[in-house]
């Protein structure tokens, strides 16, 4: 059996000691208690006794400064036995795997974007070290988060900016909807409004919740070229046609659109959102639900799991749909509406407040609910 000889700790103040000399020759027989080596600490020269009897194998030559606890030799039972020398602490550290290094910053970017590190190791060409810039370049090339949202819509804007920067938003429309959007932005960490545009005469130069109104629609492209904002969002809840027009216009001039999601809203697993959506407080977008572009969700709207919402719909407060519901495009919902599971609501329809939908609604329909109640004076 091989018994290793370690550099002893002689002085509490020293992490290492000098191995001055071996007093036995390599592979000679050593008896327990015999002096085998001389070491020197910062305070004294000390003889090292053998802790056992055996044939000595010397690993570390005399004259070496050795860490306390390091293996310097071994004792074997037979003279011709060759003990395997274990890696020293230092050598063990040096011998780390040959895989490419990924900087911690790059690793954090990968985690944040939900990318697959193994895949990136293969797909990012070149250098030994993968840096944050490599990840950013990869995402620009492939779109953000290809590993998890492949095929789905994604908000490309957010991830192409440095992490410590907020996305700067242009709010289109300076009315009551803008107040709601700005109110949510107060609580959103990664976005802030830099400007508002509104066509109403007399508004230019004024501010709304501290954000300046800089012009009408014609100003949008100018402001973008001046790099005053990164993405736009339409705050007008009342006019579906306006939201659609703005969406077309922004796409034509390649201005990105952002989603506004109040921090109190929950967007669940595998839900996929387009762009230009406003999702206000306490909304719930269920798992695996898909939302198109340019929708406006008032507070407390519940789009349950596996639903599908088209583009440019407006939801009043408290619209509750069950699962697997399909909503077409440009549908306008009033307040307090319930929708049964698996129903289809056709495009361009209007659903009045208080409706309880129990069957499919064809395109271009108007659903009105008659609620009978009387009002009398208390007198």
């Amino acid at each position: 059996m091989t018994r290793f000889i370690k550099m002893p700790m002689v002085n509490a103040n020293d992490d290492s000691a000098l191995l001055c000399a071996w007093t036995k020759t390599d592979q000679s027989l050593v008896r327990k208690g015999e002096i085998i080596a001389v070491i020197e600490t910062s305070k004294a020269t000390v003889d090292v006794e053998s802790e056992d009897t055996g044939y000595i194998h010397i690993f570390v030559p005399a004259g070496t400064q050795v860490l306390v606890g390091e293996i310097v030799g071994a004792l074997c039972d037979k003279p011709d036995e060759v003990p395997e020398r274990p890696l020293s602490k230092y050598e063990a550290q040096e011998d780390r795997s040959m895989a490419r290094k990924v900087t911690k910053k790059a690793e954090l970017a990968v985690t944040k974007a939900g990318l697959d590190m193994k895949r990136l190791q293969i797909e990012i060409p070149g250098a030994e070290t993968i840096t944050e810039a490599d990840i950013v370049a990869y995402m620009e090339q492939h779109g953000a988060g290809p590993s998890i949202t492949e095929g789905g819509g994604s908000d490309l804007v957010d991830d192409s900016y440095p992490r410590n920067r907020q996305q700067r938003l242009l709010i289109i429309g300076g009315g009551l909807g803008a107040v709601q959007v700005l109110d949510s932005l107060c609580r959103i960490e990664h976005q802030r409004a830099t400007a508002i545009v509104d066509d109403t005469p007399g508004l230019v130069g004024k501010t709304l919740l501290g954000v300046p109104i800089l012009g009408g629609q014609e100003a949008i492209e100018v402001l973008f070229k001046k790099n005053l904002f990164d993405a736009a969002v339409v705050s007008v809840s009342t006019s579906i046609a306006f939201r659609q027009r703005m969406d077309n216009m922004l796409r034509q001039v390649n201005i990105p659109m952002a989603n506004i999601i109040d921090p109190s809203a929950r967007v669940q697993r595998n839900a996929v959102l387009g762009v230009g959506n406003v999702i206000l407080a306490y909304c719930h977008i269920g798992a695996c639900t898909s939302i198109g572009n340019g929708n406006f969700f008032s507070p407390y709207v519940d789009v349950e799991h596996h639903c599908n919402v088209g583009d440019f719909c407006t939801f009043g407060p408290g619209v509750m749909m069950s699962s697997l519901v399909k909503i077409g495009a440009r549908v306008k919902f009033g307040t307090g509406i319930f929708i049964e599971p698996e129903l289809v609501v056709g495009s361009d329809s209007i659903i009045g407040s208080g409706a309880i939908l129990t069957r499919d609604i064809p395109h271009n329909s108007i659903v009105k609910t008659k609620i009978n109640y009387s009002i009398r004076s208390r007198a």
Partner: protein
Amino acid sequence: MTYLESLNSGLRELMEEMPQVIVFGEDLLDPYGGAFKVTRGLQRDFPQRVLTTPISEAALTGIANGMALRGLRPVLEIMFGDFLSLCMDQILNHGAKFRTMYNNTVTVPVTIRTPVGGGRGYGPTHSQCIEKLFMGIPEIRIVAPSLFCDAGRVLRHAVLDDKFVLFLEHKLLYSLDLLSAAAGLGVETVKDELGYPTALVRNYDSGYPDVTLITYGGMTRFVVSVLQRMAEEEIKVLACIPTLIKPLPFDLLRSAADRSGRVVVAEEGGLHWGWGAEIAARMQESLFGRLRAAVRRVGAVDIVIPAARTLERAVLPADTDIENAIFEVLK
């Protein structure tokens, strides 16, 4: 120049210039020159003003208070910081209070120098950083020079300070060279409003830091390696290193923290109820809503410090703990 040499020459300069400076404590006489050799050579050159004393820390502190009341500038060495507990009453109920109790007619310019900290396998009663026990005492100052300042000059400032000063020297720093510059790091020193230096060390040239590291004293021996390693990981770190640790030069700390919004506070003393806790509390009071992550503390495990070196290493905070905390606030 090493930390030790800087302290020794700082003391020597003071003694040359000011006859009121009296240096005393246990085993200070040459050729021994003190347990850590900070006073080596002083007794030879100032035999009347370097005094060796019996083992009686409470009495020594009382004597220092008396000397200070009568116009001297005593510099008392307590052989190990752990023994400051014996000085407690003289500090808490006397030295710290005389000025106020005697209606500003006296000052108590005592400096207590003492080596603190572990890492040497000295065991439970010779390895501690117990400064947190003194941090709540009004009036006194606690000063802990780092490697990024001239320790001797800081000692001079402490001795000239009219307040009662606890002056903490980490034993692992004594043999290390002072760092006015280090490979790839920017080092800048600013004075706080009481004249003590705060070092700002960074591992980047431009832009804002990702993380602000606030630390002092012995923990600064890790700063260079941590910042260099973080640079390899593309993480920009601004280390803010005050020498006056109580009262805090908080404006400096806050502006350093505000630059990144992510704060790691590292100290060698036990993690809880300490310096880091105070800083974390004040950061949230003054930067609530501007912080991007919860303030993270690094400190020792709150148990008795073991003598076995491997166990001691497991208990005391080190560079990897700081690095992990940095990664944590970035998540």
